[in-house]
């Protein structure tokens, strides 16, 4: 399976007028109000917004975990409904299978798809090594730190050979420093193993550090408010002038700025 590094001009994920409503005590509440999006192959797209609703639901719809109220999802040019073998996901909290070891978790996907033990072990080992967990293969998730658990989650998603990886605020519960480390890690892995990534976060630093393109969503119902193409060279510095300027600009766009900045305006 040849994977080229460059972004190709073919749309990998295409969302067409996606809408989602939930029934809340008899009333229909719209959380996503018509989203159109084209994501290219091997692009790193960040869905960013301050609101609580919409972003995760959108990912879940792409993954097949949530019904689509209206609209169509195309994956690799074909209409998709339900679970798609080309889609992998990394979750918010630790979603590891607690009764399986690190190895058991990482090889879960290939095993579920009936790949022979020898082959899947080799592959799982490759990804375990890639996320820096060599030596922890036999550990159970309870014995791992939060950062390590998320590494396992990343390796597990990659090990299933998806073309598209969805990441749903994977580092929201980590402390600031571990978070920096994981962001660097994700970028390194992505540089080495190019995939189409859709990453949800409400942390602007994280968004700017990782994204080729930031899609800013509004609060309920979520629609695309603005898009930013981020062309800063990688790996990025979080304290470079351009980075901080962009950060300030986008922060102001989505929510209340710091008081000092408010006065400055």
């Amino acid at each position, binding site marked *: 399976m040849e994977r080229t590094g460059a972004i190709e001009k073919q749309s990998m994920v295409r969302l067409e007028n996606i809408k989602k409503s939930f029934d809340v005590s008899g009333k229909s509440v719209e959380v996503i109000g018509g989203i159109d999006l084209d994501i290219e192959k091997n692009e790193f797209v960040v869905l960013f917004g301050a609101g609580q609703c919409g972003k995760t639901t959108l990912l879940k719809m792409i993954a097949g*975990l949530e019904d689509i109220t209206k609209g169509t999802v195309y994956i690799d040019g074909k209409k998709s409904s339900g*679970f798609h073998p080309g889609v992998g996901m990394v979750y918010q909290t630790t*979603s590891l299978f*607690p*009764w399986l070891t690190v190895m058991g978790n990482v090889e879960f996907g290939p095993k579920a798809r009936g790949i022979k033990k020898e082959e899947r072990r080799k592959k799982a080992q490759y990804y375990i090594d890639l996320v820096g967990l060599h030596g922890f293969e036999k550990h159970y998730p309870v*014995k791992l730190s939060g950062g390590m658990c998320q590494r396992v989650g990343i390796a597990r998603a990659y090990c299933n050979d998806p073309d598209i990886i969805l990441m749903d605020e994977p580092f929201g519960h980590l402390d600031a420093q571990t978070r920096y480390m994981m962001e660097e890690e994700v970028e390194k892995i992505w540089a080495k193993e190019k995939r189409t990534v859709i990453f949800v976060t409400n942390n602007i630093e994280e968004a700017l550090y990782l994204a080729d393109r930031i899609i800013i969503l509004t609060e309920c119902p979520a629609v695309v408010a603005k898009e930013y193409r981020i062309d800063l060279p990688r790996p990025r510095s979080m304290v470079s002038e351009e980075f901080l300027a962009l950060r300030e600009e986008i922060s102001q766009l989505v929510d209340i700025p710091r008081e000092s900045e408010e006065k400055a305006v």
Partner: protein
Amino acid sequence: MGAVIKTKKTQTVLMGTLGILVFLAVWQIAVLVTRFGTIFPTPFEVLSGMAKAVVEPIGKTTLLGHVGISLSRVLVGYILSSIAGALVGLVMGASKLGKAVLNPIFNIIKPIPGIAWIPLAILWFGTGNTTIYFIIFVGGFAQMVMNTMAGAENVSQELIGVARVLGLKKNRIFLTIVLPSCVPYIFSGLQVSLSTSWMAVLAAEMITATSGCGWLILSGMQSGNMVNNVMGMISIGIVGLVLASFMRIMERRLCSWKERGQ
């Protein structure tokens, strides 16, 4: 630090031994000094009685024989009730239809203690081992069902989603996700039901058997042989302790993924 832990362990053992010795001393004094002694043996008498009973039969068999008989009865009833209880629990926990059908009748049967079934069981199965198995079976069954059901109901829907995204087929969710999630619950069911089973065997033996620890206790009382009576009780205590420890070790083995620590 290793040394510290070691001294702590020795200390615990010492304290425990001390506790047992004090208890025996109080017993001895109570028997010698108070009116207890007219009907009650001293600890020494009981211990020597036990030593003797290991080689000389009481009734049909020796002390160890009686323990063995009780134990084998428990195991048969317990294993059957565990399997049946786990299966029913899984059905009730994993299928809404199953729960709707079974829950009302189960809730009525649940509060009836195992020993309440003794008359019916004798009527149905006579006074043989089958009756005893049955009493043990109903003694542990409800606990197993409740625990397993709780486990199956609490399976994380998120994890099922995770597995589905990873490509797991729908028909394999039960074996791959539901069952392992239930293991800790099944284990706590097994532990509780083991102690109820052990109680149930005694009650059943007291009423319908001519061997086993329950018979030993009752016949000891009826023939005025309190040594036999107390011997039976102590055997029960020791066997119960051994069984509980065995279960704990098994749990640690099988549910090691739940244990925190270094």
